């Protein structure tokens, strides 16, 4: 095809050079189910060998494609089978040791993060699951690149409140063990409801049970591009037209990701998995989902109307993107991580964006309560209550929801947790001080909901 249109060429270049369009992540998803063994050292050796074998050229080829298309590929990552399953094969499991093997292998192949140090416990916990969950704080404190996720609930199984209570303790402990870095351990840990097994984004990436031997999953981004497109419209443009503009931009972003994903998968000699068409912000100026709300006409994120704006954005992104790719998956939609979005940080610092408003927004965003710093003194039972609420939203609405909160040790409302890089900076926001203790301590499971009578 003899495509040579100056306006389109400049549009693409300006999306990259001015509005931060990028490929947010290329994630090699890899099954480790053939690495099981009764001896934990053998498991470690098999895992290390397999990761190196599959991922040794990931960074090299990703860098090559980045040059060929002049589009930044920000992160190279690996997602593996939930490690609780792999470690269970050992007579004497040692999950911290396996986390260190993952970290070492990730370091050797030059990826940014490795996800999958986790378990799927929505209906109950096996011995291996419990051991893995107990080892999370030490594993995250003793590694740099390992990310952990645990699925605690689903629309089919209900909410495992015993696991919720355990994870609340683990979140608190993970933060305490990384006190020097404002509790960064908890920033690498996420609790899910309805976790997708093909998500390329951290900290929640893992290689699901129904997935193939390996696949290349890709996550695209570009909140800055969407914002610029909306700003280019007259202020009184109707919602239908705004939604159409978002769909057009999402199509362009996604088709670019599809091209990069297929090329990289081909170079690596592995199948292309899915594209996750998410608007993932960064702390860079302009690369903000909250900025899109302002472009739509809200004074700031948190104003009444924010949930509606996010709902329209999330839906339009999916509608536009889905036609551009053969396989869409992962978390697809709009992310609202507070610490990773400059204008969300500002809105939270000024008190515009409260915990309650963020929770409401998670009913319509693509994930959940993400990168929210709360006072270090927050009781474990309150954290359980926060997780239970978020799991309930996901369970009832048949969507993925997640909790990634950081009870920042020794810090309180008005102070900041500072992580730098993509994780950014989080103003500590207040939580409700009423007690949830007697509720969450009942334990057991909240039954799965009825899937009819949808009122």
């Amino acid at each position: 095809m003899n495509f040579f249109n100056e306006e389109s060429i400049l549009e693409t270049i300006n999306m990259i050079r001015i509005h931060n369009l990028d490929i947010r992540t290329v994630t090699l998803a890899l099954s480790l189910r053939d690495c099981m063994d009764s001896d934990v050292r053998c498991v470690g050796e098999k895992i290390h060998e397999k990761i190196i074998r599959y991922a040794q050229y990931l960074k090299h080829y990703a860098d090559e494609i980045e040059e060929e298309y002049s589009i930044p590929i920000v992160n190279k990552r690996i997602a593996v089978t939930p490690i609780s399953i792999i470690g269970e094969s050992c007579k004497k499991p040692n999950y911290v040791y396996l986390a260190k093997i993952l970290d070492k292998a990730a370091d050797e192949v030059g990826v940014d993060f490795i996800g999958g140090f986790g378990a799927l416990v929505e209906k109950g916990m096996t011995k291996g699951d419990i051991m893995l969950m107990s080892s999370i704080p030490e594993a995250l404190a003793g590694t740099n690149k390992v990310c952990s996720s645990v699925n605690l609930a689903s629309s089919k199984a209900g909410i495992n409140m015993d696991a919720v209570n355990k994870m609340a303790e683990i979140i608190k402990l993970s933060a305490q063990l990384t006190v020097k870095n404002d509790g960064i351990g908890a920033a690498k840990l996420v609790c899910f409801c309805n976790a997708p097994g093909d998500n390329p984004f951290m900290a929640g990436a893992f290689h699901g049970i129904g997935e193939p031997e390996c696949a290349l999953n890709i996550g695209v981004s570009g909140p800055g591009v969407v914002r610029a497109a909306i700003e280019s419209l007259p202020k009184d443009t109707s919602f239908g037209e705004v939604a159409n503009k978002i769909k057009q931009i999402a199509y362009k972003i996604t088709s670019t990701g599809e091209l990069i994903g297929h090329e990289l998968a081909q170079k690596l000699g592995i199948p292309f998995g899915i594209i996750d068409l998410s608007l993932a912000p960064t702390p860079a100026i302009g690369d903000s989902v909250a900025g899109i709300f302002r472009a739509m006409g809200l004074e700031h994120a948190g104003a009444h109307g924010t949930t509606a704006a996010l709902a329209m954005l999330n839906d339009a992104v999916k509608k536009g993107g889905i036609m551009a790719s053969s396989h869409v998956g992962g978390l697809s939609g709009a992310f609202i991580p507070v610490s990773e979005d400059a204008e969300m940080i500002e809105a939270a610092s000024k008190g515009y964006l409260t915990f309650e408003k963020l929770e409401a927004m998670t009913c319509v965003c693509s994930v959940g309560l993400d990168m929210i710093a709360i006072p270090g003194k927050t009781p474990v039972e309150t954290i359980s209550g926060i997780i239970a609420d978020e799991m309930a939203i996901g369970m009832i609405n048949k969507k993925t929801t997640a909790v990634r909160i950081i009870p920042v040790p020794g810090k309180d409302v008005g102070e900041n947790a500072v992580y730098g890089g993509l994780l950014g900076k989080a103003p500590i926001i207040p939580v409700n001080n009423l007690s949830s203790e007697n509720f969450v301590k009942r334990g057991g499971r909240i039954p799965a909901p009825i899937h009819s009578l949808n009122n």
Partner: protein
Amino acid sequence: MNVDDNKIIITIIGADQIGIVAKITAILAECKVNIEDIKQSIMQDFFVMFMLAQTGQSSLTFNEIKEKLTKAGKEMNMEIWVQKKAIFNKMHTI
């Protein structure tokens, strides 16, 4: 390999000056890169030139060609983008 795989688009952005086309075309000739089309315009006071080229006969890799062009761009204080054409096809057509 698809014929389009060898097609690249070179975009040059910056202040207008004498010899831009001469310099870039000389490098492409030296690299045995065939120019199939050239368009140029002024956008917001900037000179912008677009070239559609074919690298099939070149013995150099994409990156080697890109490095030479990027170096020439720096010498002229111009921004040069060298990209495989597929990204534009994919992004702007259904």
